[in-house]
């Protein structure tokens, strides 16, 4: 049994623009994530990858299909039982600042999962755990008294990670956790996430649009296109011999940061047949 099993998930949103067709964000997605593994989902805007991340956590309800976590069908849980379940499954968002309540101190933000899931915990013990977790993600102890707005982007994302791991989840959805960060900070955060995974034996669903990032963090990769997974393969295999034409396009659009690996100039101009789902 896998830790997370998604079976034929379907989700359709009504279009925000009047008269347009509804958006079919997920068109029958199936996947599984093993204990301690990182599965990356890569896709471009409109591919449905973020919807998938939220559907796995049941932050939105599926139209069809099911999500099982550790054998439990999440769709069958009462709201109360589902909330209790959330100690085991967490999420880190793309926007570090927006994901933190601007009116709460860092300490208040990070302690919240404990207050929710272990209401009997003494204040002193909560405080101890908060400080330990802040330390674990590389934040100084006095950060606990600060407001999120007083921190840098990288520090804010560390707070988001601290909040996610304090309840010791077994599974985390990482929704583009580094794409709004600067390059040098990005590397630090990726390293931190890898260490934490090692320490706590967590499974990750890593949602991203960036091939470089995905290559460096994942065990397996699922490629999403227009609400479907077109290809799933172990990371090295996918990069070595991509099967699906869309995967090949994605790989060829990758820009290496090494000028010695310049790709031949292929003029895309005039060829709009290969475009992202958003422009379709």
């Amino acid at each position: 049994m896998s830790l997370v099993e998604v079976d034929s998930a379907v989700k359709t949103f009504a279009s925000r623009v009047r008269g347009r067709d509804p958006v079919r964000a997920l068109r029958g997605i199936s996947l599984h994530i093993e204990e301690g593994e990182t599965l990356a989902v890569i896709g471009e805007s409109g591919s449905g990858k973020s919807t998938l991340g939220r559907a796995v956590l049941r932050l939105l309800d599926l139209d069809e299909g099911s999500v099982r976590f550790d054998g439990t069908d999440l769709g069958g849980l009462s709201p109360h039982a589902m909330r209790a379940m959330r100690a085991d499954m967490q999420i880190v968002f793309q926007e570090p600042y927006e994901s933190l309540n601007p009116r709460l101190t860092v300490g208040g933000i990070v302690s919240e999962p404990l207050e929710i899931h272990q209401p009997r915990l003494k204040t002193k013990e909560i405080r101890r755990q908060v400080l330990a977790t802040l330390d674990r993600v590389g934040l100084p102890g006095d950060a606990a008294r600060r407001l999120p707005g007083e921190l840098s982007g990288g520090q804010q994302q560390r707070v988001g990670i601290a909040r996610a791991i304090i309840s010791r989840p077994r599974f985390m959805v990482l929704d583009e956790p580094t794409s709004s960060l600067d390059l040098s900070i990005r590397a630090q955060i990726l390293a931190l996430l890898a260490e934490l995974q090692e320490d706590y034996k967590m499974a990750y669903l890593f949602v991203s649009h960036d091939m470089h990032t995905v290559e460096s963090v994942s065990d397996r990769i699922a490629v999403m296109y227009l609400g479907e997974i077109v290809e799933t393969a172990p990371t090295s295999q996918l990069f070595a011999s991509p099967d699906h034409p869309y995967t090949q396009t994605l790989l060829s659009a990758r820009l290496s940061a090494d000028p010695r690996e310049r790709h031949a100039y292929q003029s895309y101009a005039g060829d709009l047949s290969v475009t992202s789902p958003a422009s379709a």
Partner: protein
Amino acid sequence: MKVMRQHTGATVGVSFIVLLLLASLFAPLPYDPKATEGGASLQAPSGAHWFGTDGAGADVFSRVIDAARIDLSLALAGTVLSLVLGVVLGLAASTKGKGSERLVRGLDAFQAFPLLILALALVTLSGNKLYMVVVAIALINIPRYMRLLRSEVLSLRESRFVEAAMAMGASPRRITFRHLLPNVWGVVLVQTSLTIANAIVVIAALSFLGVGVSAPTPSWGGMIRAGAGNMSSGEWWIASFPGLIVLLCVLAFNQLADAIGDTTARSHR
């Protein structure tokens, strides 16, 4: 307070209001505000009567100060009622579900009401009861609170940090009190300051029309009413001083609203 230090306008405004209130409550007035003196009517401002006297010979200065008590307390009462009901109803209108949808529909229709006319009608029908003035202020201002709260809460509900709270298993109750409400207090405070200003004007308008606070109890609107006719014959002071006080009060609360708004905007960054 932090708000004050950065905003001179608000500091001056609040000091003015506090001074006015204290004066109306405790200061010895030069004349009895309700006393009339036939021989001393329509006197222009002078050393004896700083703001002049009205048609009945009463001292305008004493009346203007005295009126602050009733006008400001009615305004505050109306604001508190609007605030409490407006916030509760606004929260109710920003949840999912049938009831909330109906509330919103009603709110939309309410926009079409000529609220001043309705307020006037209610106060008149009740036989000039002062509590009805408070109700009238609430009637005008509750929809504003509701609309404000609804738009703020709906956009907050879409925010990442509320999604994060749901992802960590927070109950709806916890989300409301820990994540939504603390983030709307800023705009609610701004609105409250504006509501006091609006209430002062509504009360003045009602008394100007002879509704609500009625003579001989001094009220700013009533005093403007008494001096309205004199404006076209040159005795400007009877209506001008109470009008000026209303203007200054409104200005003060508007400044305060600006200051609060600036402060919350800054701390939000």
